């Protein structure tokens, strides 16, 4: 049965593996070159600046231009990294069931001397294994690429999504999702469309609604200004999260808030603060700051920032990946239940 599952999808698997290899190769080559040029540019004698060198002319300038050219490829690699997991998962998910049901070849398979459960388990098992085999090396290389020359903001969508093992988990999740939808819809085109749409919804919902529950976020309280230092310029928050952290929430809430503040608490507090501030003269910067400080004191509120610190990146990757995998297993179980009932 493993041979049958492999034979059924081998040409598509080869094409997807080739695509993954191209992405891997491209990331390795441009990543290595960028890393090399960056080290040269940042080190002596350039020290990160375009300067004319005695006997070497505009060596630093040339390095900088080379780096700029190489950086042009980064967007392509990030885009490829974001697309590869859903692409591999969805296409192999289609081949696992929807394609066979639509082309009616299940009538051939399901009238041989094997059970539907056996047939489905092997097809989904082989499909899932292929998804993992293609995506694991891709995830390893893209994580390296990300760490070497990618953005330092680990939690930005085009960084988090292509680094770490969540790339593999995304692929397996959409694979299982497509298999289940294939059992329900039974048409390749519609199954693909609905599957990609649902995956996008999940991928957008998880960072904003789920991640804060997967790790314990850091809660940072602060007064609105460093008034005591007499510096009233600019910043609203005296204790901003680190630049590479994932900011989940920022706003004003009562200092008595228990637990991790939520957006609803921020939204409930804000009108009172604004009403209070309107009662003060706000003509000059100094008046504005004084008024705001007075209101914060009067209302017993403070600025709060809730964020996931970058040292929790791998913990979050592990937990989020496990969440996607668990959801994938549940979806595959649902697909099996449907397969046993399908009348092709």
């Amino acid at each position, binding site marked *: *049965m493993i*041979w*049958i599952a492999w*034979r*059924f999808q081998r*040409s598509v698997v080869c094409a997807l593996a080739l695509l993954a290899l191209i992405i891997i190769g491209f990331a390795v080559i441009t990543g290595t070159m960028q890393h090399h040029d960056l080290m040269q540019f940042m080190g002596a004698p350039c020290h990160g600046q375009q300067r004319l060198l005695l006997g070497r002319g505009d060596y630093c300038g040339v390095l900088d231009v080379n780096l700029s050219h190489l950086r042009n490829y980064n967007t392509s690699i990030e885009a490829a990294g974001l697309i590869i997991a859903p692409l591999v998962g969805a296409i192999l998910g289609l081949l696992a069931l929807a394609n066979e049901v639509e*082309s*009616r*070849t*299940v*009538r*051939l*398979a*399901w*009238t*041989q*001397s*094997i*059970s*539907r*459960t056996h047939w489905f388990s092997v097809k989904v098992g082989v499909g899932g294994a292929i998804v993992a085999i293609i995506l694991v090396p891709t995830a390893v290389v893209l994580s390296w690429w990300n760490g070497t020359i990618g953005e330092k903001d680990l939690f930005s969508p085009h960084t988090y999504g292509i680094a770490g093992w969540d790339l593999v988990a995304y692929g397996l999740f959409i694979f299982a999702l497509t298999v289940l939808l294939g059992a329900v819809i039974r048409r390749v085109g519609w199954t693909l469309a609905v599957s990609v749409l649902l995956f996008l919804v999940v991928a957008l919902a998880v960072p904003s609604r789920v991640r804060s529950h997967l790790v314990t976020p850091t809660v940072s309280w602060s007064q609105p200004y460093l008034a005591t230092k007499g510096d009233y310029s600019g910043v609203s928050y005296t204790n901003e999260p680190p630049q590479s952290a994932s900011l989940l929430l920022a706003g004003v809430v009562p200092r008595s808030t228990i637990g991790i503040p939520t957006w609803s608490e921020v939204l409930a507090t804000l009108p009172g603060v604004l009403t209070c501030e309107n009662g003060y003269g706000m003509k000059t910067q100094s008046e504005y700051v004084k008024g705001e400080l007075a209101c914060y004191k009067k209302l017993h509120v403070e600025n709060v920032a809730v964020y996931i610190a970058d040292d929790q990146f791998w913990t979050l990757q592990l937990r989020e990946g496990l969440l996607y995998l668990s959801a994938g297993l549940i979806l595959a179980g649902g697909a099996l239940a449907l397969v*046993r009932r399908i*009348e*092709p």
Partner: protein
Amino acid sequence: MTGDELVVETEALTKRFRRRTALNDCSLTVPRGRVAAIVGPNGSGKTTLLRLLAGLSKPTQGRIMVFGEEMSASKVDLRARVGYLDQDRPLYPRWRVREILEFGRRTNPAWDSEFAARHLSVLDIDLESRVRELSGGQRAQVALAVCFAKRPELVLLDEPAAALDPVARQDLLQNITELFADNDASVLMATHAIDDVAAICDYVIILSQSRIVLSEDLDYVLESHRLLSRGLDDGVPVPRGATVLEERRTTREITYLVRLAMPLERDGWRIERPTLNEIVIAYLRDRHRSTSVSSDSGLEQSGAP
């Protein structure tokens, strides 16, 4: 007839697809060792009946027994004894014929590789050809080889000769006969072609409007039906025990196709044997088989056949 002698037995079998009833209250038995034909117009439920027997779908009501056991998709051992040829010949188009046979070998413990290869070799079908490159007839032969090489005791064939040219059709029917003889299997074949039934079948099941209207040995069917003709003005009544299925009139003569329940007395009738074609068409046309036979025309009330 005991359960062991029956390969197929259905009781009040009903299958509905949403609002459409594909099979309605069908009770049927097929004895072992027969080549049975299921005939009926499009949409009469032939394919639905075969898919139920193959375990591809479940009845809405009633029971379906194969070899005395209730058929279901989960009964692998039972399905191993049943071969099924779908009317769409669903083979993997990009696979080579050799790979299709390998598929059969890997999914059937009783697979007869030698038989499959020999069967296709006799028909000059190259095992290295891709399925999509084969003609309709060759594809049907490959599907048939897969169906028979699993060594089934019951073979379900859905329109095996459909869309084939006359030569390919004749060859395929010949193959089915030979395969049946070689494998000692019972065959249940859905077909539109009544000529095919006469050529290779010994049992006939007629389906009309989702109901079974006849299920008998072919010889018995031929022996128990007659064409009775007389002049229009002769006024001779239809003999007792004869159920009129069809009436044909010309300017001088009236002919009844009747089903006989007892030996026939001539009583002035000219009696001929109908062809199977005539019998089947009469059943398919006769939606109300409990025909009222008016005394004016010399017909009498008779029961359903």
